[in-house]
C-alpha cells in the first residue's frame, strides 16, 4: 500500500497517496477552480502538463505555483482563489 500523506486545501483536511500532485489533491477535495483571471473569470487545470499555467494556486503562501507540477508534501497548505 502506498504511504498516505495529509495536507490542507482551503483549510480542509485532505489525504492522498505519496507521489500525488497538488492538482490530484484538489480533485480529492472537490475543488475545480484554481484561480481567477484579471477579469475575475474562473480558471482551472487544462493541460495537466505544466504548459498552460491555468492551474496556479498558492502553496505555503507562495502564489502562482502550478498545481499539476508540484507533488504533495505532508502538512502542505494549498489555497485556491475560487
Amino acid at each position: 500500500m502506498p504511504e498516505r500523506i495529509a495536507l490542507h486545501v482551503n483549510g480542509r483536511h485532505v489525504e492522498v497517496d505519496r507521489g500525488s500532485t497538488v492538482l490530484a489533491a484538489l480533485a480529492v477535495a472537490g475543488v475545480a477552480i484554481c484561480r481567477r483571471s484579471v477579469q475575475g473569470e474562473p480558471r482551472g487545470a487544462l493541460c495537466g502538463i505544466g504548459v498552460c499555467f491555468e492551474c496556479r494556486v498558492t502553496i505555503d503562501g507562495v502564489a502562482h505555483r502550478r498545481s499539476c507540477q508540484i507533488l504533495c508534501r505532508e502538512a502542505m497548505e494549498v489555497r485556491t482563489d475560487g
Partner: protein
Amino acid sequence: MSGRTDVLIVGGGIVGAACAAACAQAGLTVALVEADLAVGMDATAAGMGQIVAMDGSPAELALTRYSQRLWDDLARSLPEDCEYERCGTLWIAADDDEMEEAARKATRYHEHALQAELLEQRDLYALEPALRPGLAGGLCVPGDSILYAPRAAAALLAEAERHGARALFGCRVRALHEGEVELDDGARMAARTVVLATGARAAELIPELPIRPRTGHLVITERYPALVRHQLVELGYVKSAHGTDADSVAFNLQPRPTGQLLIGSSRQYGRADPAVDRVIVARMLKRAIAYLPVLHGLDALRVWTGQRAATLDGLPYIGPCPGRAWLFVAAGHEGLGITAALATARLLSDHLLGRAPEIAPEPYSPARAWLETVVRA
C-alpha cells in the same frame, strides 16, 4: 490630401496624440502621421506609464508639475481602460545622506505647492512593510499617478478625431520641407505648421537635434496584489541613473492595478538592438531585490526594452525651430514623455493660437540645441 491643414503632427506616440487633441480642441485642422500601425506602439508602450513631478532642474519641475495638473483634470474623463491610478511615489532614502536629499527635495516640492511628506523610518515601513530593513526613511509624494499609456494615447487621439483630426498609420515621413512633409512613397502633405513628435527618432528628420536613444529594460511579474502600494523609487536614482553616460541601473517599481509589479530601471546609450541584455537585467533585478527582498522568488512574465529620447541637458525640446517658424519640435522627453505630454501639447496650442502660456516656455526652446551643438564643436 485635399486642402491645407493647419497642423501636421509627425509621430503618433503619446506626445503626438496629446498635441493632436490640444490643437483639434482649439479649432485647428489637424492631421497626424505615424509610421507604426497604431497609436503609442513605441516608447509610449515600452515605458512605465508614470505621471511624476520631477525636480532635476527648476524647468523640469515647472513642466512636470504643470503637466501633472493637466492630467489630474483629464483623469476624470479618461476611459476606464487607461487604468489611471493616483498611487503616489515613495522616494526611498537608504542612509542619512539620502535623508538630507529627501529634505531638500521636500523643500523644492513645497516651493511649487506640491504635497510632499518626509517619512521617518517607522513611517516608511508603516506604508510599505515589504521594504528591506535598515532603510533611513523617505519622501512621500501623494500626487503622482500611473496609467496604461498606450490606451491613454489612444484616448487622446480619439478626442482629436472627435474634433475632426485625421490620423494616418503605416506612413513614414522621410523628409521635412518648408510647410510640407514628404512620405516614404514620395507623396507630400502640406501644413501651415509641422510638429515633430518622433521621440528618440527625431534626429532622423532634424539632424541638428542632439537627441540620442537611451535604452531601458523593464520586467513585469505575475499578479501579487497588495504587496506594494506606492510607486517606489530609490533616492539614489538621480545620481545613479542620470549622472553619467555609462550603463546604469536604479530601483524603480510600480504596483499596477492588476496586482502585477513593473520593475525598472536601466539606462544605456549606444544600443540599437532591441534584444534584452541579460547582464543589465540581472543588475537591475539585483538592485530591486536589495530594496524589496520579497521579489526574490516571484514569477516574472516578460522582459522588454524601449528607447527613451535623451537630450544633452535632460530637458525636452518644445518650441519652434530657429529659422524655421513653420516647424515645431515636441521631442526629447527621455523618461518623462507620458508625464509631460499634456504640457507639451498645451505649449504647442498656446504658441499656435498666440495665447500666453501658463509656464515660461524658454527653457524648452529647441534653440538651445543649436547653441549646445556649437559649444560642443
